[in-house]
């Protein structure tokens, strides 16, 4: 059991990462990664949602009639997302304004939906919690790396603090949606082409 839990935890962080291996959750990956601060809030929101919805649905899995399981999944996911939305709105109103519709769009994030459908429905709550959490973390670190480079190259700053100085010319394309496509493609190329095959050979 311990070995299985470890495998469930490590899988989404490496070879089975939801973003660069399964290419899920791309909409938000492209949309929110132009500023590191927003990315952090977004990934926390997603990790919270995917962890708790996996746990909840796994706990209910024997009660959910299979023909309406998608409705139940969506409803439970939506509940957690609305909670995130309300909490942000009350406690971090500045960031809530900047994230705009993207928090609400976690509801339709394929990672959350995919983990509940593919994993939580057929595994016990403990493992599902681990799976949800590590899928969220897998999403988090990929987005943070992308956001780091996009904000650095696009605005010359990190976390809103200027680091490249005034002689740096901002690459405006990096903070626009096309910049995210380039950045994500480069990231996938580096990870899948350079890092992962090396790991497999060991």
């Amino acid at each position, binding site marked *: 059991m311990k070995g299985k839990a470890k495998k469930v935890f490590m899988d989404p962080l490496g070879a089975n990462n939801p973003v660069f291996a399964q290419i899920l959750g791309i909409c938000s990956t492209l949309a929110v990664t*132009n500023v590191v601060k927003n990315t952090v809030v977004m990934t926390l929101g997603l990790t919270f949602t995917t962890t708790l919805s996996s746990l909840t649905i796994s706990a209910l899995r024997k009660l959910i009639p299979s023909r*309406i399981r998608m409705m139940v999944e969506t409803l439970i996911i939506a*509940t957690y997302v609305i*909670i995130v939305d309300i909490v942000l709105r*009350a406690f971090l109103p500045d960031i809530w304004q*900047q994230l*705009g519709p993207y928090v609400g769009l976690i509801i339709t994030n394929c990672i959350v939906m995919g983990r509940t459908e593919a994993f939580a429905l057929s595994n016990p709550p403990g493992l599902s919690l681990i799976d949800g959490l590590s899928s969220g973390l897998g999403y988090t670190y990929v987005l943070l790396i992308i956001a780091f480079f996009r904000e650095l190259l696009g605005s010359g700053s990190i976390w809103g603090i200027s680091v490249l100085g005034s002689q740096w010319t901002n690459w*405006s394309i990096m*903070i626009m949606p096309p910049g995210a496509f380039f950045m994500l493609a480069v990231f996938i190329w580096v990870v899948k082409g350079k890092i992962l095959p090396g790991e497999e050979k060991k």
Partner: protein
Amino acid sequence: MKREGFFAERVYPVLFMALVTIVCISLTSGIFLSTEDLVRSNETLFIRRAVLYSAGIPVPTNSQEVMNLYSQRVEEVTDSDGELLFYRIQGEAGTPASFSIVYSGPGLWGEITAALGFSGDLSRMTGLDFIKQNETPGLGARITEAWFKEQFRGKMGPFVMVPEGTARGSSEVDSITGATRTSDAVLTLINGGIEKAEKIIALGGGR
């Protein structure tokens, strides 16, 4: 697992869904209601900060100080139906009062709401601040940066936008490179706001 029969196939799913829905809705409603006051006071705080900023008054970082300063300096002028028309801001010892209005218009992605401040004789703007905007972070959202907002102080419209870094005249302002459509939207918003201010402040007996 496979369940059969009328109850398991027809009734149970409906009951189950209804139950889950009730639980989820109670949960979200409960959280919504318990944070409602906080959300409302955040919104009020945003507006008050913007009104003070648009009047050229340095805005304190502490929210309690913002509230105190606001109640000392700002009077909300309403029409006979109690509808808010504009804000009258007391001048420093002896100087005439100035005015601010809150005005909204379309941006590139969503509605932009701004507080626009004017001197007592409406001859120049005392400043402006954005209360709500959804522009592209790093591009259009740069309208919220100080350099952009500060350039309106002491000038009067109708404004003309010129390329970033070339504004000279008293009705010229720098636009934002890479955010032409946001710049245009803000220009329309501010020029519309100026027209509205001229009407509304005369109406409210401001002048």
